[in-house]
């Protein structure tokens, strides 16, 4: 069962904080929804630092990041 983190519309650094909390909870895969390229890069960098593999899918004007470990 995938965890979903909806970080759309949240400003910096909320998307990263939510993603980190989800990673610490330890249930994978985690789907993170973000709206801006800034959030996409920030979440990706933070997740990779915590040892996750990140796959990015672009959906219209949004991004769906799938975090696995």
């Amino acid at each position: 069962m995938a965890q979903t983190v909806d970080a759309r519309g949240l400003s910096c650094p909320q998307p990263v904080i939510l993603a980190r909390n989800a990673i610490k909870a330890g249930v994978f895969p985690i789907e993170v929804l973000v709206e801006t390229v800034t959030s996409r890069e920030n979440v990706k960098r933070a997740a990779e630092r915590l040892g996750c593999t990140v796959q990015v899918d672009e959906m219209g004007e949004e991004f769906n990041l799938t975090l696995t470990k």
Partner: protein
Amino acid sequence: MSEKLTRFFASRWGIILTGAVIGILAPLLQHWGNPANMGICVACFERDIAGALGLHRAAVVQYIRPEIPGFVLGATIAALLFREFKARTGSAPIVRFVLGVFAMIGALAFLGCPWRALLRLSAGDLNAVVGLIGLAAGIYIGVQFLKGGYNLGRSRKTHTAIGWIMPVMMIGLLLLLVFQVKVSETGALFFSESGPGSQHAFWLVSLAVGLIIGFLAQRTRFCTMGSIRDVLLMGDTHLISGLGALVVVAVIMNLVLGQFRTPAFFGQPVAHSQSLWNFLGMALAGLAFALAGGCPGRQLFLSGEGDGDSAVFVLGMITGAGLAHNFALAGAPDSVVDGVQKVGGIGPYGMAAVLLGLVVCVLIGVTMREKVEV
């Protein structure tokens, strides 16, 4: 190609490049006419703009600084080119306004925003060390609120025209400057004839520098507050490598240009050595920036890419500058009167305002926790 460039700008080298470019251009702006240790200061320059518009009447700090429109419009150009311009708003704008007001009051107690603190440091002003420690302390408090669930809520996508309001206002400021509008003998615009407001590089040069930095900073998300916050929050040194590059390069530039002074506290240019209030002023600014999610520069860049909430923060800062000077809250520089060294600083109203600001920001941090659905 565009995606490749985006990757470069998002990399550590991208942020280091941006810091280095600021470290080169800011001291050069001083060499070309900007006030000492004030090649770039977002707070000071917004304050000068407030003065030019007559929102305060401190005669020595009135000028429409083209760097500010340059920052916003440079970010707009970058966001359009890379298809990141996105109009959005609605994340507690009134709170962002209040945070902007107090961020400015704190910054003017210190006499500079984080950008100027770095530039002052790079030229030997030791008060900047005190200010930067204060800034970090304020951000540290903000980080505790963030960890405790502080959140101003989601913004929403909105009409594209809303995203354009800030860039268009900046073009308006430039037009006022270019045409040197003067509505009457005693009316706006006001331009300083002496003091820091009268010292500036040629406006096209200032604008060009602003555009370059705005462009790079939009791409790399350069943020002075975010640099320190990311280290405190999660040990992430990505953004702060940009700050490091800025300081190292600015020190070299200041040495080359003869702008570096023997490191000292007293008598630094447009600065005071009242350490307690340098510390508390920047602590207030740091906390307000942390709660608003960006330093004053970052707020300008975000407003340029369509973020209406950041635009409100900027307007809050400009309003705060008006209040700061009208209510005698801003710091006065050190001076030498009849051969006697006189330490400057803020007066009783300024002290009360800084303390009030800290209380208000703490209340915002404590009361505005939103449980976000995960």
